[in-house]
């Protein structure tokens, strides 16, 4: 089993606040892993450490076996980690198509003199980039909306476009920050379907943050639970659903003890 992403004792502090504390995580290749936890548990901070926006104080992040701690965000993206945002952050005044083209940026190699002179290499590369963008647009089901400005797209389409943009860089690891936030039931069902096929269809690993338990339980191979920055549990969806510490973190102590008893009785 190849490991795509591994964090070792990852710790991020903001002044006195420990946002992420000693988190160990191992994500196998082509799996779907979820990070869950109550609000303020440090999930997004964890994402920001992986993508290079924050530099962790302690610990290590290994991507395909090499440490990426201290790298700039653009370098990490170039290595093969792409992400989406909790509150959609597309480039609002660019067309959907151009958004994807920007996503392809790290894969494109042509330089500015080539751009001015329109060298053969640059033109071939641009043509291939356009083709790839069209393919991705189709892949996320937005064919026909490519020339719309991103800000004019409906909400669900914006979420999908954000994923298409992230896929533009041909990542090996895709980080999704609450991909179904604000979606209705049908849109959520479509999104679950879409995420579930990603590892098989295009061979990438997915790590997601999600609040919607139905989503998490139905697509995750592995779930890690954060609470106050610490990892309090890890395992398959079934294991997590039964874990008393998780229930305590979500529902409070009383609920957990009540459940403990029933668990014990059942055992």
């Amino acid at each position, binding site marked *: 089993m190849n490991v795509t992403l591994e964090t070792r004792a990852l710790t991020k502090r903001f002044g006195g606040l420990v946002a992420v504390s000693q988190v160990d995580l191992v994500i196998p290749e082509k799996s779907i892993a979820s990070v869950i936890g109550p609000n303020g548990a440090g999930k997004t901070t964890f994402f920001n450490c992986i*993508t290079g*926006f924050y530099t962790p104080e302690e610990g290590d992040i290994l991507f395909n076996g090499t440490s990426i701690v201290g790298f*700039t*965000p*653009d370098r990490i*993206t*170039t290595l093969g980690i*792409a*992400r989406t*945002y909790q509150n959609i*952050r597309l*480039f*609002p*005044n*660019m*067309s959907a*198509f*151009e958004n994807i*083209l*920007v*996503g392809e*940026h*790290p894969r*494109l190699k*042509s330089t*500015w003199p*080539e*751009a*001015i002179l*329109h060298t053969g290499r*640059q033109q071939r590369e*641009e043509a291939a*980039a*356009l*083709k790839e*963008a*069209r*393919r991705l*647009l*189709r*892949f996320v*089901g*937005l*064919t*026909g*909306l*490519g*020339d719309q*400005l991103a800000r004019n797209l*409906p909400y*669900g*389409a914006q979420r999908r476009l954000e994923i298409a*943009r992230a896929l*533009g*860089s041909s990542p090996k690891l895709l980080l999704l920050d609450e991909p179904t936030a604000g979606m209705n039931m049908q849109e959520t069902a*479509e999104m679950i*379907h*879409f995420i*579930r*096929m990603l590892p098989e269809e295009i061979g990438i690993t997915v790590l997601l943050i999600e609040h919607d338990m139905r989503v998490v339980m139905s697509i995750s191979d592995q779930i890690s639970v954060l609470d106050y920055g610490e990892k309090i549990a890890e395992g398959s969806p079934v294991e997590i659903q039964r874990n008393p510490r998780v229930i305590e973190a979500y529902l409070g102590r009383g609920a957990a003890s009540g459940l403990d008893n029933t668990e014990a009785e059942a055992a």
Partner: protein
Amino acid sequence: MRPTIRNAIISGIVFGLIVILMDLIGLFETLSDILAGFIFDKPTEQTLLASLVFILVLMGMWAGARGAQPLESSTRYKERLGALTAGFTTGLIVAVFVIIIGAINAQGIDMRKYLAQMSPDSIEFFLFGKPPLTAALIYILLFTAAGLAGGLVSLLLGRGRLSRGYEKLRTQLLTSWETTSLARRINQFTYTQQVVYGVLVVLALALPFTLGQYWNFTLGTVGIYVLMGLGINIVVGLAGLLDLGYVAFFAVGAYTVGLLTSPQQLSMFQISFWPAAILGIIIAAITGIILGIPVLRLRGDYLAIVTLGFGEIIRILIRSDLLSDYLGGPQGIRDISGPSLFGVSLTSDRAYMIMIILSILLAIFVTIRFQESRVGRSWIAMREDETVAQAMGINTYTSKLMAFAVGAAFAGLGGVLFASRNQYIGPEDANLLVSINVLAVVIVGGMGSIPGVFVGAFVLKGLPEILRQLQDYRILAFGALLVVFMIVRPEGLWPSKRRRLEMRETDLEEEADSPPIPPGTTPPVSEESLS
């Protein structure tokens, strides 16, 4: 009824105050003078008065149109009443003003001590040469009538129909052009496209030969602004880096060519125009990078303040006694030599006009090529959201430096042409107002839009040249225009349009070329969910 009337009274007060302000600074006299001179050969007392009444009626109609602005649950009758009220209020306020200044004037007090434009003659003129009370009555009647007329006109035209009509016309023109078979053919076959562009270029280059010396010089000035507008369009319009010290790069280009070609300073280095021009552009670009490095981490307001300071530092350095042995201090550099080709001197206004047009064409070419490449896309992405742009793998450091360098190179080229054409460059050619003017060109025209730069440059540089008599009020007009534009058309006169990439390409390519939709992918969003 109340909100309509309240709205109308407020409009009336505002317009009344505007009329008073315009009179206090003597704008009515100047405008009447221009208008009378424009329509009649020699302005006489009567024609001047007629012009004044005409301008006042226009103001009154505008006030009436504002007053007639329909609110919720308002009827046509109320709107007409609103127009009438707005006009009447304007007239009332101006009438009070007229009585006051008339009384002061009758006392023989000279107001020019406090307000330079308020000479007895000017007051007489504003009072139509009548006693104050009669004049006040005339003003009330005039504005009430004009207000009502304005209200009727605005109701006839429909609310905001004018601006929407303009927008509609523009889109119609563009779409009808895009859908014509000619345009399709042009878009499909690059050779036809090249021929059309070639014809346009030839036409542009033929322009200087049809113009006289004055117009070649005037349009040349506009052209230099277009060139600089294209440069700042890259920095501000595309990359979103608010640069208020843009004139510094212009100065660097101008002074480089000045120092290297003028016999006055540093004569040991004297070289001919062409290598000096190229050096000027390169040094300007390097200056752009040098400025770029320390401000890389700054965003928005902070960036604007630092670049503003940088522009001023350059100007003060040029002026300073410290460097006056080298840069000429406040005297500047004279006798800058012009270009020549095969022994033919190219220093006529026409020759410069041709060089300016060629430079603009080059700048447009470079801009378009950048826009259609990953470099240009990374600039726009940075403007839209710098953090996300970086997360998309864009190296924001090099991307910003690139934008600064290209923008500075355009400004440097503008400076080279400016200094060489005037055969002189001084520190005052590099003052802050130039930066602001160039920025205004881009804002008025439309950020990130190439045609917008032309529109903006003609509006802001061409019009004042044509209306030379307005010069005293140029700054005032500038400010007013900018404020109006920011309110009415924040996106500029000719906003940029995103290229249609998906549709055009799919038209040409075979649909079957792309792989099938993977199973489970959701179908395209239907029209319903769009609304």
